[in-house]
């Protein structure tokens, strides 16, 4: 059966990274999750174009690609804000006051967990457990883990981003 490899959604050079991942796995359908990881790492999120491209490249039904992309919490279908604040909600962080951190950030900036502010500046997210339980409660500010965070500190760090950029 003849199969023509589909071309990437755009001529963005970053698609080469995704192509390399698929090639390494021989365009096998088993590589679906690895490929989705590659797309998310490269572009930050999975948009419909990307899902369609992955589906046709690996010859997996789009429904299955969408199924996997929405089943796993690590994948996100929405672009992230300029800055991200991830509050760990693992057991240790939970009993040491993570819900208060979440509530105060959520209240100040009018976003719920998993949402991005209207100006696209801040995404407020939660994590199941960062494995930094010894430093509970832990918060990740733009990829940098901070331990023993108080709601005031969290607001202060985020405040600096918002102020600095405006």
């Amino acid at each position, binding site marked *: 059966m003849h199969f023509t490899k589909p071309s990437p959604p755009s001529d963005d050079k970053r698609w080469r990274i995704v192509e390399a991942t698929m090639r390494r796995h021989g365009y096998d359908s088993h590589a679906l999750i690895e490929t989705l990881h590659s797309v998310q790492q490269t572009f930050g999120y999975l948009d419909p174009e990307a899902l369609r491209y992955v589906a046709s490249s690996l010859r997996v039904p789009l429904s299955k690609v969408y199924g996997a992309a929405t089943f796993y919490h690590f994948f996100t279908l929405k672009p992230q804000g300029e800055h991200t604040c991830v509050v760990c909600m693992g057991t240790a962080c939970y009993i040491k006051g993570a819900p208060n951190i979440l509530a105060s950030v959520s209240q100040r900036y009018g976003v719920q967990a998993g949402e991005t502010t209207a100006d696209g500046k801040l995404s407020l997210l939660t994590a199941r457990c960062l494995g930094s339980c010894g*430093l509970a409660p832990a918060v990740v500010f733009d990829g940098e883990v901070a331990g023993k965070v108080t709601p005031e500190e969290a607001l202060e760090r985020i405040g600096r981003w918002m102020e600095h950029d405006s």
Partner: protein
Amino acid sequence: MTPEELRRLASSHEEARPEPKYRIKVCVAAGCLSARSDQVREALENEIARRGLEHACEVKGVGCLGLCTAGPLMVVEPDGVMYEGVTADDAPDLINSLGGEPVERLLCPADAPFFQKQYKIVLENSGLIDPEKIEDYIARDGYLALARVLEAMTPQEVIDEITRSGLRGRGGAGYPTGLKWSTVAKAGGSHKFVICNADEGDPGAFMDRSVLESDPHRVLEGMAIAAYAVGASQGYLYVRAEYPLAVKRLRTAIRQAERLGLLGNNICGTTFNFHVDIRLGAGAFVCGEETALIASIEGKRGQPRPRPPYPAEYGLWGYPTLINNVETFANVAPIIRNGGDWFARIGIEKSKGTKVFALAGSVKNTGLIEVPMGITLREIIFDIGGGIPEGRKFKAVQTGGPSGGCIPEQYLDMPVDYESLAKVGSIMGSGGMIVMDETSCMVDVAKFFMEFCMTESCGKCVPCRVGTAQMYGLLQKITAGEASMDALALLGELCDMVKHTSLCGLGQTAPNPVLSTLQYFREEYIAHIVDKQCPAGVCPIHRREGQ
């Protein structure tokens, strides 16, 4: 590579570098890194360079030193002086102190019960070796067990040794490892797989992460020995994508081992081939269940399937597959090196060896510990953990994450082993241990875990998908002060139904946090329902009254 050659490699590595007079070991595992131990390391290196002391003093990044709460930690050798809470600004003082009096204000007493009561097998190299250098691992007898197995043991002898050790699965269920290996070895077929389950999803648990970040070769060696024993030539390490540092160090370790012929084709010059690939998890708790994990490696949604057939007979792509947890594999090399009988002497009757726990929550010394099986909870929490901070009172200890239970004070003198924990309604689990004091509301804790299970339910079977949501709804009502006593009876019924009719371990154990709190802290449920108040002051009813 023969055992002889390995030893020669280790000693030539030692000789190649003139032994510096002082060696400063800075913890670069994730806990200390988030307390900026990387900056401390850099500051120390700069200070040494500034004074031209490079020949006399070396700074080395090492794996987890255990006491995460006091990070960044470091040890100065040869005296073995341990420092805690070090910052980059302390570098000049620390370098000044070399050869003289230690820096008093930063001292961390290494003779404290936190260190003295531990027994290290899995973590024996943590904090000693540089996890990114295979030579360091080899210098501590690394890969010696693998070389010995390939040189002088048959697969059956390897399995017998593991069986004799009494090692049981450290992922939580405690299935005898030797039995699992021999089932896979007996399964027919030319294709077999070995999988390492490093999808550490329990909230409040970071044992596997620390092992992978501190001593990645140990896990690879265990996998290779297992592959030889069961007759597999391909392995997969299924790691959480949330652990980028562990993934990076594993990739480095695999590359290094392949270069030395300790992984790949013709390992140690024999006909044995074993390749290891990494597969990234994508944040689904259910993938810790073995059949779901297999589905995920196959590129599908991580949904479990009924067992039997067990993966030992019908696993990855339908081939016989051995799945063990990180800590289980990490125990293999020392067992081979020291003998199964040596391992069987540690611990107690039905639970041999040691267990690594992630001690966290309301306890003074939070961090990573390894203790002999059979130690009491009191010793762990009050001696090693240093007790409850801020003069608060112990209320419960939670083991086993969302699949475990909350153990009250009356059982603190119970030994920690698989059977005892199960008897009081909890499980050993993978090793998360969260201590709670009187500021925690046990109904709220039950609700927390139920919310977790509800969200993480894969949705395949009805009891788990619907049952957890119903239980969560009831717990929400109770914590809001809107439930009647009938809710308790209904909750009990639902627990029973979900426990006995769910497809996989996630659903079957999801009721445990509710069951154990209902059993030991029933009065707290009643306080919410009848008195409409939360004794710990956590739940919304309390806040409403306070306003």
